[in-house]
């Protein structure tokens, strides 16, 4: 996370890939009523929150308590706006085991809804990174933008996405 906050995308991606399965199993254990897709939506909410709030982790403090606090807050919040009240303790995360990946496509529905509400160019950039696995340079070349502009546009798009999800799902 320290490396990630300094802009190391590879380290950050590795961290997210470690966190996501653990969070998925916690969400699934609570969210039978939401179905797999619903749970995946909640998980994506949580991951977006971790991303947009990553600067609130103080580097000298341990990472886990921060991570669990953010995740717990967001999971409870995500269930609340989907009409479910849940109780969740920090231990649920500490004891969480990674959910098996399986053949499940792990697809959420909300993201598409929110992407459609985004400005077309911003949505295009997000899709470029997500679905096509583009690099900053590739996106920049495709859209005729500078790499810096792509980075800033992506950053803004993610902030807007996080805000929109909150509003649209309610």
């Amino acid at each position, binding site marked *: 996370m320290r490396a990630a*906050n*300094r*802009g*190391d*995308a*590879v380290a*950050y*991606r590795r961290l*997210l*890939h470690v966190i*996501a399965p653990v969070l*998925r199993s916690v969400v699934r254990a609570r969210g039978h009523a939401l179905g797999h897709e619903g749970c*995946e939506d909640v*998980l*994506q909410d949580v*991951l*977006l*929150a971790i*991303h*947009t*709030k*990553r*600067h*609130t*982790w*103080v580097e000298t*403090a*341990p990472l886990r*308590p*921060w*991570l669990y*606090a*953010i995740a717990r*807050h967001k999971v409870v919040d995500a269930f609340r706006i989907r009409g479910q009240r849940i109780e969740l303790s920090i231990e649920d995360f500490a004891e969480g085991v990674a959910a098996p990946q399986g053949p499940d*496509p*792990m*697809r*959420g529905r909300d*993201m*598409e809804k929110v*992407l459609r509400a985004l400005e077309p160019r911003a949505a295009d950039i*997000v*899709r470029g*990174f*997500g*679905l096509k*696995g583009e*690099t*900053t340079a590739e996106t920049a070349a495709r859209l005729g933008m500078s790499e810096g502009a792509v*980075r*800033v546009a*992506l*950053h803004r798009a*993610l902030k807007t996405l996080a805000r929109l999800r909150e509003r649209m799902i309610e």
Partner: protein
Amino acid sequence: MKTDDLLSVLAADTVPQQTVDSRMLRALPVAIAISAAAVLLFWGLRPDLDAALGSAAVLKTVVPAVLAVLAAGLALALAHPGLRSDRRSMALGLFAAALAVALVILMVRDGLAGLTNALVTPSLAVCLLSIPVLALPVLGATLWALSSGATLHPRLSGAVAGLMAGGASATVYSLYCDQDAALFALPGYSAAILFVGLLGALAGPRFLNW
């Protein structure tokens, strides 16, 4: 979109984020300068400011300033999940308790008559109105800075932000206020600051949710 794809998107966003502290450092000086300028322009400094700052009346300036610093420390801790905030809440709590004890001692010394004597002055209304008004820029700046944080208790964070803004505003206002009776300043300033705290508590859930 698949979650794995989302992770790729998130990892690609490497633009560094502004920390809550740096936002605070950016916005607070501006807000306090606005409040100070308002006092200079519309309220005016008390003519005997030098003499007042050399007497016990300096407490009217120092005590709210200390309160503002303690509340700012707590508000910042609350905006960072995983940071322990208990020491900072205790410091703020002890400070408030000391003020309450001081008020009780003064009341015992001068009785209810002393309190009403000190408070029945047109300055009370001016004080109760001015401090919240002068606190608004500071409260706005603080909430803006804290909104980039991740408080788990928006209402509490808002209230603490309000105490901070109220303290800062009372510090600035004390440069105008020429009522030096402790039984005026202590209850009057406290009530005004608590009111700003209440405003903050009301605004917290609106601005600090994430």
